[in-house]
């Protein structure tokens, strides 16, 4: 039995103590925006916030989470999808398949909370989640946009006809 504060709601869950927080969130609580990607904290698809820190929930045994810990998942970021990071992601058309994006967004939100105006080097260091579709360039641009800077997709040159 564990008591968890998820997205501001306290829930009792009946589960073995070594169950990863990820699977408690997905299977007992029923919030599926947090994804399973690797189970070994390598890919970041399972990223959530615990007391404001980004954590890879696949590798957090539920027994290590205290009742007073505040867990926030992608569903708890904003009731209306209007968090600045979500809006920036929309503006930059970041997602392709979208599967990793919950984790990417949670990582970006945590970064911006610490560094409201991150440099490219800060983004390199903080945004280590894997995206197989390769949306990294737009993620970088969207983080800058969410920071209130001009987010620019680098040099897409769409020309007219080429003589061939």
């Amino acid at each position: 039995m564990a008591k968890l504060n998820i997205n501001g709601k306290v829930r009792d869950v009946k589960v073995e103590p070594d169950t990863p927080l990820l699977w408690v969130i997905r299977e007992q609580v029923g919030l599926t925006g947090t994804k399973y990607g690797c189970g070994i904290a390598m890919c970041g698809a399972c990223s959530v916030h615990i007391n404001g820190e980004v954590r890879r929930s696949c590798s957090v045994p539920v027994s290590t989470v205290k009742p007073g810990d505040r867990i926030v998942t992608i569903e708890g970021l904003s009731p209306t999808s209007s968090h600045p990071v979500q809006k920036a992601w929309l503006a930059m058309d970041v997602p392709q398949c979208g599967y990793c994006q919950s984790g990417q967004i949670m990582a970006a939100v945590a970064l911006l909370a610490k560094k409201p105006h991150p440099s490219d080097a800060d983004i390199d260091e903080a945004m280590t989640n894997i995206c197989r579709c390769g949306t990294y360039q737009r993620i970088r641009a969207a983080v800058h946009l969410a920071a209130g800077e001009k987010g620019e997709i680098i040099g897409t040159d769409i020309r007219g006809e080429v003589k061939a």
Partner: protein
Amino acid sequence: MSTKSVEHTRMPANASRRRFLVGSAAIAGGGLAIGLQLPFGIETAHAQATPYSVLSDGEVNAWVVIRPDETVIIRIARSEMGQGTLTGLAQLVTEELECDWKKVATEMPTPAQNLARKRAWGEMGTGGSRGIRTSEDYVRRGAAAARMMLLQAAAHDWNVPVGELTVSDGVIRHAASGRSTTYGKVAQAASKVTPPELKSIKLKDPRTWKVAGKPLRRLDTEEKLNGSLVYAVDLKLRNMKCAAVRQCPVFGGKLVSYDESKIARMPGKPKAVRVDDHTVAVVADTWWRAKKALEALPVVWDEGAGASQSSATIAAHLDEGLAAANVFQYRVEGDALKAIDGAAKQVEAVYSTPFLAHATMEPMNCTVRITADRAEAWAPTQNAEAALAALAETSGLPLDKCDVYKHTLGGGFGRRGSADYVRQAARIAKQFPGVPVKMIWSREEDMSQDFYRPISKCRLRAGLDEKGNLVGFHLRVSGQSINAFNNSPLAKDGRDERQMQGYYKAAGDAQFGYTFPNLLMEYAMRNTHVPVGPWRGVNTNQNAVYAECFMDEVAKAAGRDPLEFRRAYMQNHPKHLAVLDAVAEKAQWGKPLPAGVYRGIAQFMGYGSYVAAVAEVSVSGYGTANDPASGGRAADRGELKVHRLVLGTNCGHAVNPQQIAAQIEGSVAYGLSAALFGEITIDKGRPVEQNFHNYRIMRLAEMPKIESVIVPTYDFWGGVGEPTICVAAPAVMNAIFAATGKPVRSLPLKNVDLRGA
């Protein structure tokens, strides 16, 4: 999606509007019950707990539903796995329909619905970069027919000639009388109008497009930003159980036995089941408990003959193919061997590329429920019709008692064209009648039970005359065949032309872009016990590495600039050349770079599109004080940094340039991840790499700046999702060659020592 998706289908087109959830369907690849022979499948729609089989009411025709509130629901048959086909197809429909883009939503028919209507939606399979290029014609005609029917309905209502009407953004006007109406008002009447003869419809000239051809944002983004999109792996059904599976770790091995008593007391009421002759599953109340119990389950395998195989034995097998007599001579033009032997100078090299895993972010999974008279699957599939065939075959129920509901795929890349995981889930669910069973592969299972990009090696030789002109070119690929693995007649007697993708003589698909005076291209089919399949870009990836890196070696031997050397042999291939020139111009080929930065260039063709790339890299030490030429310390050399890539494509028509740019960016990440880190090695018959800790994927910090140059010529339909991958690696490898002076001949680069002498 559960109940939420049901709400969505009743919502007007606003907020999360654009996705109307219906079941989805797919087409056939496996060909079993349906007898179709399509390589791939489809995808989409979200799974709902309740009836999936209802498409929206009020259709004008198969492609278009218009509601009284002016919402336009466009039916999409192809799978959406991130590649943007859903948005592109909706743009094409909107263009011909002349409706309001802001009011567009989409829904996906299921494969059973498609079959029931004699495949009204055509091919559902989604692979080979065909999503748009092989359906654009009938999709646009369907949309144009709907427009004509809507106009006809208004003309009839007003009793005026239809030729006097105009339409824009779903508003029909009659200028002479000043009257106007809307699609929503005439849709019902339009559905009763006799449809026009499709072949007689004149489609718009793409140069006049207003919605298609524009860099519009995707329709399916919002639900990917807040956790509300239900991927197949997220499905929740009442009374559902979850399954974890393990297949024999050695390919070709068999399941002998397992001891269920050892897990009987574990949480979740785990039950072990035999799935097929090489697979065991544990079914429990949650997946985590099923997985834990599976890990605790003692299993005895018969590993079989494959267990003696390793990367070393496979390499030796390929080496034998490089030297063998009597191999498939694919292209024989002139006498290349004689020309090379008699040339003033010979250049020779052997290249190699490894097995690669797809590693979709969402692992393989499928949910199946089988009752006495109904079988349903909720699947992330590129090939819904193949999934349907697999479900029917496995359940033993006729096709019309089965259906497949597609979910948005968490990545496909070719892996999800196979129905293996659907069949597996069905075999498990069949043992729990009436109970929905969600089967999920662990990442380790996903990585070690893939259909890998085939391994190959390539020996190349070229002859140069005294002036440095190429007089003969010989290339032999030795490697595994995808067609042979699939028992395709196309691989008969080792004559598998598909393994020569990108070297084709014929124009239009994957034509080799050079004309050489004497040419010999050969393929030595050397199969292994490792399962292989299409991996985004398929054979263009390794074949581009071989041809394009070797071209740089030959250019260097000829004392020529790599771009100029290529151009000399491309005069008969103006489209290839135009894209090469476009990227060279954009990257300012020939202009000085900062110290220590070097360029590489490559061009190729695949999936009907012409592509080229210029890479800028630095390799620490080279071009600076530590350069081997200056006697610097080797220890300080050899670290690769890829700074920038300029990629160009001529895909004929550019339906959404922004999405094309996204695919180009993504293809670089996919291609460079492989080039830098990707390899599946084999030990004792099984893959060594099991998860992302030893199958490394490029991360954001490693992503170079990507600049996309899209140069459509508006005279053909080429693919987008795959073509540009193949030039990313050779451009980078050639830039490394420029930096270090040593050609890179094997991938991944993590195994290559770049420190120099």
